[in-house]
């Protein structure tokens, strides 16, 4: 179980972005971090992975403190897929191979190569292994980065807005893959996402942030009219459409637009 306890974070010389954030996720669950722009969603994700160092708080995996682990050990437990997908002049195979870097000594072993091939197969990018990443579409690049993360053999997968630059087909494909990974491997996935309907479709746990603090954390039921009003300042309902929950905004414009905000 991933447990985040009282994590607070601020950028040097700036105001506090996160204030005493606490939540926990069971193994194999898919958690969505939600909230409006600038609330600290990506910051929270990066604090979990020690990309940013919080001013206080702990992150634990099955009770053991992750912040005490050296970088290489931490990378064997947590994989991170950044919002910006690089366009490096490296082959897909080499990019996925990077996922074995936390296990590498002088060079890669046969076992490393086997795991990399397996990860590429699972993400359906094996046929691209000889292509340069810079020549792939956005969806293909995102899958390659997921394969790289999978090659790390992590317990936790962190994804920072993985669907923000993808078309609808690739959005569904990528999130479906992550959902399947969670279910099949018992990996815990934490995703920062703006699209509430995608989150409702694929995630099974939700963390709503407001003003750097946890507003609510739980299942689909926490996303109700009041929560949407308080967090996003919109009048909206969560309705059931053919068995799927969807957020329908009542008004055309959010509060404040009329006032020229």
């Amino acid at each position, binding site marked *: 179980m991933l447990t985040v306890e009282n994590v607070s974070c601020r950028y040097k010389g700036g105001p506090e972005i996160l204030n005493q954030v606490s939540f926990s996720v069971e193994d194999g669950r898919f958690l969505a971090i939600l909230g409006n722009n600038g609330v600290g969603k990506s910051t929270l994700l*990066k604090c979990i*992975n*020690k*990309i940013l160092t919080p001013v206080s708080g702990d992150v634990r995996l099955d009770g053991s403190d992750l912040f005490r682990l*050296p*970088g*290489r*050990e*931490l*990378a*064997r437990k*947590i*994989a*991170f897929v*950044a919002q*910006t997908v*690089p*366009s*490096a*002049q*490296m*082959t897909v*195979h*080499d*990019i996925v*191979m*990077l*996922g074995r*870097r*936390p296990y*590498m000594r*002088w060079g890669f072993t046969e076992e490393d190569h086997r795991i990399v091939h397996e990860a590429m197969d699972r993400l359906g990018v*094996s*046929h*691209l*292994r*000889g*292509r*340069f990443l*810079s020549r792939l579409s956005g969806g293909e690049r995102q899958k390659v980065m997921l394969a*790289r993360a999978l090659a*790390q053999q992590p317990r936790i997968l*962190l994804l920072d807005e993985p669907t923000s630059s993808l078309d609808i087909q690739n959005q569904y494909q990528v999130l479906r893959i992550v959902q399947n990974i969670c279910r099949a491997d018992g990996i815990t996935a934490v995703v920062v996402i703006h699209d509430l309907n995608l989150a409702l479709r694929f995630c099974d746990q939700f963390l709503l942030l407001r003003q750097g603090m946890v507003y609510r954390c739980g299942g689909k039921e926490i996303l109700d009219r009041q929560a949407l009003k308080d967090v996003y300042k919109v009048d909206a309902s969560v309705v059931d459409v053919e068995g799927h929950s969807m957020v329908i905004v009542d008004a055309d414009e959010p509060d404040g637009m009329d006032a020229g905000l």
Partner: protein
Amino acid sequence: MNLDKSIWENSDTATAYRRNQIRSAGFLIGLAVLLAVAALLSLRAGSYDTPVLELVKGVFGQASDSKINLVVRNNRLPRICTAIVAGAGLGITGCVLQAVLRNPLASSSTLGVSQGASFGAAFAIIVLQMGAAAGLGTVAIPLCAFAGSVSVALVILGLSRFRQISPEGIVLSGVAISAMFTGGTTLMQYFANEIQLNTLVFWTFGSLGNTSWGDVGRMAAVVLCSGVYFVWKRWDFNALLSGEETAVSLGINVRRLTLVNMLLCCLTASVIVSYIGLINFIGLAAPHAVRLAVGNNHVYLLPGSAIAGAALLLLGDLVARMAISPVILPIGAITSFLGGPLFLYLLFKGGKRSVDG
């Protein structure tokens, strides 16, 4: 050299990846062959005209004429080895600096190492009044040049350590420090006499002909040690191409990686520059030339940059010696003169690919 364009499109990609590996390895072997040919041509070049076989025998002290043994072992071979070691060092450090500073224009020259060395040499020649002709000058000038370039490295290191500046900031600091040291050198030149000015100008020309076997050995030891370290970190440099956050998430201490490698590059370049004077463009052009052929994978890029750097410097030296023989042109001027157009060619041939990683 644009090898990657066609091979993937209509071929089985499982074998295409293997083919890419073979092509990259083949490119490195091709470069090594070019280097060997350049070394042979360089061995033959000179006023003492001898058949190649005799020259090769002379390398092992087995030539029929003892004069050949002497010329080869005491004159031509140290020069060739100097070019190979120095070129390899400048090429590989340029490649590493471009990786850790995430800047395609980074090289020891752009960081101000060369300017620091010039300042140090000027200090030895003008302030300490140790001309190259004086016995002490042959030791003092390289030592002061080394101290000058290391001081640049230390200033940059201090700035990045205590002021927490970004890689872009490091490159800009290098530009500022270069200007400062160039200004200092000019001021010293203003007060120098004619002999001192001549000595300094001759030193800044760069020369591969003034190194002893001992100098070559010391240079080789430094280049080899730093080279092994760089190759050990090859996948860390690859990870940096995926972005700083991704590199951190892969367990890499990006800040330490940047600082340690930057310092090591500056030290290696300082040692080289202190022995052979200012040689520009090798550190910039060699990695870009290799990148066009093998992409950004540092598994191939690092050795490729070293071999290409050695070949470029050796060929530059060949041009310097052969252009208007028996006059030997300054190697620093030749590498800049030929390196500039070569770099422009690579830039326009590779377009965006060559610089954006």
